[in-house]
């Protein structure tokens, strides 16, 4: 396995869905290839960063528009 082939398997590797034989070969490659170890870390970090992303703030004009539309639809008095 070379570095290019390793990169192609990262999705299944980080999801723990790689067949045992491929996982074994990949981990042997990692044991002697520091750049691939770092690449794997940054691939995982990319995934982790997205989990930390908060919701996009609502624009104030949208807040007013939604309140108006919902109150009209609910037919509730103020």
């Amino acid at each position: 396995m070379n570095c290019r082939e390793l990169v192609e398997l990262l999705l299944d590797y980080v999801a723990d869905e790689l067949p045992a034989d491929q996982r074994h070969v990949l981990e042997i490659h990692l044991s002697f290839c520091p750049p691939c170890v770092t690449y794997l870390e940054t691939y995982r970090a990319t995934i982790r960063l997205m989990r930390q992303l908060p919701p996009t703030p609502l624009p104030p004009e949208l807040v007013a528009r939604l309140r108006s539309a919902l109150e009209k639809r609910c037919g509730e008095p103020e």
Partner: protein
Amino acid sequence: MTDSIPFAPQPPPRPEALFAEHAPRIYSLAKRMLGNDADAEDVTQDVLLQVLRKLDTFRGDAAFPTWLHRVTVNAALSHRRKRAVREERTGGGLTDDIPENGHAHPGIVKRWALPPDRQALDRETQRLIEAAIERLPEGYRDVYVLADVEGLPNAEIGDLLGLSLPAVKSRLHRARLMMRDTLAPHFEEVA
């Protein structure tokens, strides 16, 4: 909301509660998929009104989050199609300049300096990430946002977008590689 008194009459949902609970998530998903404020706002209003109409059906139902994702994704895709017609173009989709194979790291890969896992991202980092997502080609962006931002399983994403599981996984992997490459210069440790 409580489930302790089955069949007890419940008051109609108040707009404020509906708004506070669902609007930010709906808007975020639509904005990230569409990369367009005006369309995301239209989608948010459309979806919230649908939620209001159907809320009694889903009161306390575990299927509600799945339904909400489906309605939001469908509304976003519908707006994108309308926009494409308006602009008399195909509306993007997959581009030909994304290599299906052959992505590999260069010989030197730098480590990243990142905030701790549980620490809130600062505004500049959020802006960088949102801009990187917006630059993804649409067909990749949809899968990426649903998988890595919304946290949906690949099978559910395939169902929502009408894609096979291998297609979802392939697009997700390409999108992650593009995101990693875009973000790398901002997070690499200074030697």
